[in-house]
């Protein structure tokens, strides 16, 4: 029994067997709210996914037509807000004992859609650069991505 847990002494004169000290939780005022946590978690995950999809859409449109989105909306601030939303979701998930598995599944169509999107953005961003710089730009991008991956997921 936890020492800090409130205790109540019950004395039952009619039945000495039931007398003794028992632990009783105080009335849990936030119990209902706490039990709604999985709902909040599920909604936060969906909000994160919708935000990421919207961000990907904005990024693609702005990459195709530079300035069309970024002149109206600060994409860096939006990305920061999405990261914050993901952090809140992950914290709540950890509290609920749920985890974000971050291992790309080669068989999933989403992985291949993501890779194609990345290739498209890379191709688009290298247009009008001198030919000899393109391998350097792409190589630097993958090197930076590899380092980030290692730092973020602490993989050897």
């Amino acid at each position, binding site marked *: 029994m936890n020492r800090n847990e409130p205790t109540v002494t019950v004395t039952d004169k009619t039945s000495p067997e039931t007398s003794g000290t028992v632990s009783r939780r105080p009335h849990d005022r936030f119990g209902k709210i706490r039990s*709604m946590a*999985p709902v909040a978690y*599920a909604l936060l995950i969906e909000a994160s996914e*919708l935000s990421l999809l919207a961000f990907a859409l904005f990024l693609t449109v702005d990459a195709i037509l*530079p*300035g069309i989105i970024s002149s*109206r909306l600060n994409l860096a601030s939006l990305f920061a807000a999405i990261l914050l939303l993901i952090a809140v979701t992950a914290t709540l998930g950890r509290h609920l004992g749920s985890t974000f598995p971050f291992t790309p599944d080669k068989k999933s169509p989403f992985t291949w859609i993501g890779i194609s999107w990345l290739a498209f953005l890379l191709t688009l961003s290298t247009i009008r650069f001198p030919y000899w710089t393109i391998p350097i730009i792409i190589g630097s991008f993958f090197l930076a991505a590899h380092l980030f991956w290692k730092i973020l997921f602490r993989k050897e």
Partner: protein
Amino acid sequence: MILFRPATIVPERFRTPYRIFRVLLFVSFLGAGTLFAYDTLFPSQSFSFSFINPDTEKNTLTDPLAPDGTDSMRKGRIPAEETLRTSAGTVGSFSSAHVELVLRKDSGIPKDGDVRITLRKSFRSFFLPQGDPITVASKDRGVTVNGVPYLFSADTLQPFLSDRAALSHFPKEKLVTANKELLAMFPPKDTKIGFREGSLLSDTQGVYAVDGSGIAHPIGSTQIFESLGFHWNDVIPVNEEELGFQKRGKIMLFDAAQPDGTVFHDTVSGGYSVVRNGKRLPIENREALDALLSVTTPIEVSGNSLSITTTCTMKRDSFSFQYPTYSCDVPLDTLKALPGGSFEVALQSKEELHAISLQTTFQTKPDRGNLGLFMNQIRDRFSTAYGKKQ
């Protein structure tokens, strides 16, 4: 992704509220997306000036000017029959402007139609009052002694900061080579001359416009640079020392005025004018014009911008209970084709006013014409980004 399958982590008893919240989430995302798309297709831009806080950075309309060019009206006291002028630097093409004026309780209460709003469109400095025309060419000359460029003016020699600074004043062919004796005859001054007023300088950080006091103002973005009418081929790449010589000024945004030294070319009359000391001086001397055109590219304007106006008269809003509020809508169709993105807003009242704020919102009507205009802009932007190199 759980978007495409029901969340299994939600306990059975909370599935119904979860579904309701889920629908609300999707609707709010869809609503926000639709609003953003609408704002992109049919944009609006709002500008305001608070006469209570005339110094706040939040004011997006420029400082209101009285007819004598002073800022005597910036506290909101607008005498009867006098015109208050302010301006807004816009980007894009708008169909109408909604102008709203909020008055103090101690203000005169004008009748409907007593307050008139007039709008003109061009580049901000083109609206400056016209000064005396330039009829005589400058007698200043550029000379080079031992490879060092000097300005020879009124029998004095003054060295230029650098070759590039000299070339912002004179084209290469006008820099005359002189022998050393000139230095003995006219001992040069110690102070150096920087870049010509109106010069556009660039370093690795950005582009700067030099004003009449030699202050270099950073230009906020490439979009601002282009909307102010500047030309990329006029930009002079400079080094740290050259830029450091010019004092650093306030950032130039869409509402910025073109600095002294800026040349305008009126495509209607064919005339040229130059901005100098808060006035626009017509250039009537060929030599003076050629000297300016050899170092800068003029900004093309339409002389009609000064005469074509669009007006509306204000009416009191029915629901303005706390403070008397007047508003009206001005159609902008007649101004659409005029070059420049700066709107001059002029307010005149038959009654003496004491104003709290003035707000102007430029709007784009959601019609087929404006949708077509947006599609044309997309096409132009696409060809700029992916078309053949110029």
